[in-house]
């Protein structure tokens, strides 16, 4: 199998070999640096949101207001949700996508590198606007991350903090839409020859679907924020029933964005798991085409289920949203079964990345199954807006998102930095995280079934105390696990074992280039004949694989 040698272009070297200076990062249009900026910024916001979570848990451990007053508590949980969902969860995947997608498709950068930079700066400045609400009089918003009208209108909640919240998030939303245009165009148009759509790695597919979702889900969010802002500041009455407006209008538009948002968050993570599991099972991904179609099935269905967040309103057509929500279990189940199929009869190495991926599958299983419960309106009537829902979405968001994110970090850290993260510290990270996470959230299912509502600063029912104490202990243990990761990260950046180009025997194109990649990404590009170009390249001289392109369309090993 031939490789094509790329002559290095005759460009001024100074522009390409600088690394790490402030000016370098301020003016960069290199997708790799922009990806690092996204990841670092979103992780910093994650730490801030995590501190807010610990404050919540500290207050809720026992009945009575010990640590803070009601208003402060309401601000803390509002900003916890806001930082985590809007400013961290969707952005860390965007960072990984920015770094990896051009590498995985064999391109030198994204389609619009300058606009890519602008997207990052819009995200950063928008986030700073949101964070500045902590410092204005009245403090930050205290209306929950969903900011339902009429509570969030000027009539019931005054203060600049709320307006800064809206404006900051609107700016971040614009950043997201711009980034989505960029990444979708890149994936559609900048694949190297031979990289057909059905040879794309699953992470890139996950990013494609995720960015398409952003393209169609973020505009409604911008709209609802614009409506809310007009109502707060310019006398509009969209949500005021006394003058012909409709509170339920807010809920409809918000959730038309809000449900796809959670799939926006999780789909790239599915992509990460679909990269990690095959590599550490030493087998191709089981059912590649089905995995791609499952992505689209999930994405399409995600637009049809928004009102399952509104079952308790009594104002939505229940059966339609119920069946659509239940049906999402089918493509999601396909994914889980295909991951198992990949591991089955494989040759599994339990690296930290793989441990995180396995933790993801187990924990996401619980989160997904409890989602099925919530898809049934009668059951939802019992448990909606209780800690059952809180536990459900934390199993997905913390269990799903964080395990997947850490799997991605342990997997790709060598590619980004040229060094490995410590596997020993990684195991400690995994153990403390697995224990801490389950201890924190499992008991919330039970106390939610018992009727404990969410978003309360305090509770009066004594028997809820034990579950809350356990949950708080778990939360602090989870915090310790994050500290272990940070220790691992800072230690390995400087003293980690050198990794080489391909420490894991990876499948996708980024493993063919150096760690970290050169500024134009590739010195050599192999020919692409399957969805595992790095694997094919490694086995190019292996007679066992001669002529047998490992092509999913070949139907060689299908039963």
């Amino acid at each position: 199998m031939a490789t094509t040698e790329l002559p290095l272009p005759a460009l001024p070297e100074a522009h390409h070999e600088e690394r790490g200076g402030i000016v370098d990062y301020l003016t960069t249009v290199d997708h790799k640096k922009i990806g690092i900026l996204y990841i670092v910024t979103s992780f910093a916001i994650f730490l801030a949101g995590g501190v807010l979570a610990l404050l919540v848990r500290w207050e809720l451990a026992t009945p009575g207001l010990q640590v803070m007053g009601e208003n402060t508590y309401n601000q803390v949980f509002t900003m916890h949700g806001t930082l985590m969902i809007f400013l961290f969860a969707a952005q860390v995947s965007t960072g990984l996508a920015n770094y990896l997608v051009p590498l995985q498709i064999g391109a030198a950068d994204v389609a619009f590198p300058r606009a890519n930079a602008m997207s990052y700066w819009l995200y950063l400045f928008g986030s700073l606007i949101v964070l500045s609400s902590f410092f204005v009089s009245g403090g930050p918003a205290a209306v929950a991350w969903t900011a339902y009208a009429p509570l969030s209108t000027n009539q019931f909640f005054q203060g600049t903090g709320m307006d800064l919240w809206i404006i900051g998030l609107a700016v971040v939303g614009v950043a997201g839409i711009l980034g989505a245009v960029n990444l979708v165009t890149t994936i559609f148009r900048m694949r190297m020859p031979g990289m057909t759509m059905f040879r794309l790695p699953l992470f890139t597919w996950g990013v494609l679907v995720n960015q398409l979702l952003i393209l169609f889900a973020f505009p409604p969010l911008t709209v609802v924020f614009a409506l809310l802002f007009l109502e707060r500041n310019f006398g509009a009455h969209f949500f005021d029933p006394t003058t012909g407006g409709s509170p339920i209008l807010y809920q409809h538009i918000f959730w038309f964005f809000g449900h796809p948002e959670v799939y926006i968050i999780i789909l790239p993570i599915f992509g990460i798991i679909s990269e990690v599991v095959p590599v550490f099972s030493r087998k191709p991904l089981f059912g590649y085409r089905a995995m791609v179609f499952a992505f689209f099935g999930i994405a399409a269905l995600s637009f049809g289920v928004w009102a399952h967040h509104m079952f308790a309103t009594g104002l939505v057509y229940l059966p339609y949203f119920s069946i659509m929500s239940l049906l999402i279990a089918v493509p999601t189940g396909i994914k889980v079964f295909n991951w198992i199929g990949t591991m089955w009869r494989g040759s599994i190495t339990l690296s930290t990345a793989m441990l995180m991926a396995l933790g993801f599958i187990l924990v996401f299983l619980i989160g997904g199954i409890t989602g099925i419960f919530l898809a049934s309106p009668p059951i939802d009537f019992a448990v909606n807006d209780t800690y059952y829902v809180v536990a459900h979405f934390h199993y997905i968001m913390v269990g799903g998102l964080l395990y997947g994110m850490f799997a991605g970090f342990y997997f790709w850290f060598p590619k980004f930095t040229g060094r490995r993260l410590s596997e020993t510290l990684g195991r400690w990270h995994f153990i403390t995280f697995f224990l801490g996470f389950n201890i924190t959230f499992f008991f919330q299912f039970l106390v939610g079934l018992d009727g404990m509502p969410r978003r309360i600063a305090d509770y009066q029912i004594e028997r809820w105390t034990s579950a809350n104490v356990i949950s708080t202990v778990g939360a602090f243990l989870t915090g310790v696990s994050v500290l272990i990761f940070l220790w691992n990260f800072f230690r390995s950046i400087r003293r980690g074992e050198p990794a080489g180009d391909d420490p894991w025997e990876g499948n996708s194109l980024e493993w063919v280039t150096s760690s970290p990649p050169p500024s134009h990404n590739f010195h050599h590009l192999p020919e692409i004949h399957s969805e595992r170009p790095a694997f094919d390249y490694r086995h190019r001289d292996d007679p066992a694989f001669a002529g047998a392109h490992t092509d999913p369309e070949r139907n060689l090993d299908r039963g």
Partner: protein
Amino acid sequence: MQPSRRAPARWLAVTAVALAAAGCTPQSVTEQGQAIYNLYNLFMYIAAVVFAVVSGLVIWSVVRYRRRGDELPTQTHGNNRLELTWTVIPTVIVLFLFVATLRAQDKVLDTPGDAQVNVTVTAFQWSYRFTYEGTGAEVLGGPDNIPTMVVPVGQRVRVKLVSADVVHTFYVPQTLFKRQAIPGTVNEFDLTFDKEGIYHGQCTQFCGLQHAQMVYRVEVVSQGRYQSWLAETTRRGSAGQPGT
């Protein structure tokens, strides 16, 4: 670190706790809630089986297929029949759950004919007012007064739920039911209590500063006691709220 040896033990522990959770749904104290309770248990049995099977497969494959050498395993790409099976079976399960859902839903939301007791519940920041239609009785809650909604056992209570300001909820955990109170809308539902007692109620839709204090009670009494309470409350004008 021997994760493969701890893995089966971990799996057993998690499954056991998950199954234990099945017993933790509150029993319903209304007829309508009974349908929800049964539906929940149906979902739980299926969920427990799915969880046990899938997590078992994950743990087993990790234990059984650990890397033992440098040889590459057979590079299987897929299996059409298997993939079809695990697409069809979940679809069938999901459709079954949907039909069960519809049946339960009808029982929960049905409001046939007239009810014996009609209460208008007005939710406001941060308590409730219960107005018994056709009588003069009213119960008003406030910052220092947790209102109690007294209803007779065995009789259909029709609640008309409205809000005076923002979105609230009417939720009594032991009825396994809740409904939002949305300003500008009247939400109607029935509750037929079949067990006497005092039940805790709370607002679950975040509604502002004292959302956590927005609690109330539903007291289910015999029909005789209800009639006498009603007469007394009507005569008094408004129960339990000083200075209103």
